[in-house]
C-alpha cells in the first residue's frame, strides 16, 4: 500500500495543476512564468480554470478580508491532495499592507500554506523554484497541509470566523487608541 502511495506521490509531484488566485499585483509575474521565457509547463504545471481540477492554489499577493472569504471557499472546493503556495511577502506578514485594516497579515492562520515564496515581487525563477521545492516536499511526504486543515479544522474556522463574522466592534475602547484632536 505504501508503495502505491509513493507511486501516487511521484505522479502528483510531476503533474501539478495550478489555480492562481490573481487579486494581488503578483499576478503580473505569472504570464512570463507560463510563456516562452520560463515555461512552467515543463514541470507539469498547467494553469486550470476551476478549483475542482486544481492541485495547487497559488495566492498571488495580498488578500483583503473579502477576497479571503472567496479563497477559503475555493480552497474547500478543491479535492484532497491539494497544496497552497503563498506568493510574495503580503501572504507572509502583510507586506506593505502591514498596518492595513482590511488586508490579512498571515495567510496560514486561515488556510494551511505548504510553501511561501518570499519577495516583493518574487521573480518567475522563484516561482519555478517553489514548484521544484514543492515537488520534493510531496515526494518526502511533508507537504500535508490539507491533512493539517482537516485535523485542526476548528482552529482554522475560529480564525476565519474572527475575521468574517464580527458581532462586536474590534476596538473595545476606541477613545484610548484613537488619536482625536
Amino acid at each position, binding site marked *: 500500500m505504501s508503495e502505491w502511495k509513493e507511486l501516487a506521490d511521484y505522479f502528483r509531484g510531476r503533474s501539478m495543476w495550478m489555480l492562481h488566485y490573481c487579486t494581488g499585483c503578483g499576478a503580473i509575474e505569472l504570464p512570463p512564468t507560463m510563456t516562452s521565457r520560463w515555461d512552467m509547463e515543463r514541470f507539469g504545471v498547467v494553469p486550470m480554470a476551476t478549483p475542482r481540477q486544481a492541485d495547487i492554489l497559488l495566492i498571488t499577493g495580498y488578500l483583503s*478580508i473579502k477576497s479571503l472569504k472567496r479563497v477559503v471557499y475555493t480552497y474547500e472546493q478543491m479535492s484532497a491532495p491539494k497544496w497552497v503556495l503563498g506568493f510574495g511577502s503580503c501572504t507572509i*506578514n502583510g507586506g506593505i499592507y502591514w*498596518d492595513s*485594516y482590511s488586508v*490579512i*497579515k498571515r495567510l496560514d492562520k486561515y488556510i494551511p500554506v505548504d510553501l511561501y515564496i518570499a519577495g516583493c515581487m518574487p521573480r518567475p525563477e522563484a516561482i519555478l523554484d517553489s514548484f521544484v521545492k514543492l515537488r520534493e516536499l510531496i515526494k518526502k511526504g511533508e507537504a500535508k497541509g490539507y491533512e493539517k486543515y482537516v485535523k485542526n479544522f476548528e482552529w482554522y474556522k475560529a480564525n476565519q470566523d474572527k475575521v468574517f*463574522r464580527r458581532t462586536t466592534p474590534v*476596538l473595545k475602547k476606541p477613545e484610548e*487608541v*484613537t488619536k482625536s484632536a
Partner: protein
Amino acid sequence: MLKHVEKLRGMGLEANPLKDWEFEVSVPKERVAEVLSYLKSTGFKAFIHLACVDWIDEGEFELVYNLESYEDALQAVVKTRIPRNNPTMESMISIWGLCQVYEREVHEFFGIEFVGNPNLKPFFLENWMDIPPLRKDFNTLVYSEELFEFKEDETHGIKAPKRIEHK
C-alpha cells in the same frame, strides 16, 4: 475660464483659477446645490468624483465635488466644509443620479450622513462596526493588531517594519 470665475465671484463666492484648465470654488454648505446646478447649466455636465478630506485639527470635513465640462475642456472643483461632529450633508442625487454611489462610499468611509440618499447601505466593508476607517482618528495599526492578532514573534523571524510616526 475666467468668465466662469468672474461669474462665480459675482455670486459672492470665493473662486480661484488653479491652472489654465481648472478652477476651484469654495461654497458654504447651504449653497452647494445651487452652485452645482448653476455649473451644470453652464456646461459642466459631467460629475466626476466626490472626495472627502478629514481636517481633524480644524474639526471639519471638506467635501470636494469634481466636475468636468467636455465642451470647454474645463474642470471645476467645488469645495465645501462641514463640521466634524454629526456631519450631515444634503444629497446631490437630484442633480446627478451618479452621486448616489459616491455618497454611499463617503458615507461608509467617513460617516457623513447624506440627507436624501436612499441607499447608504455598506458598500465595501463587511460587518464594519468601528468608527469609519478613513477618519484620521482611526488607528489602523491597533485595529489590525487586534483583529488579525499579528504579533512580531509570529512572523517567522521577519520583523514588522518600524512605524513611521507622523508629527
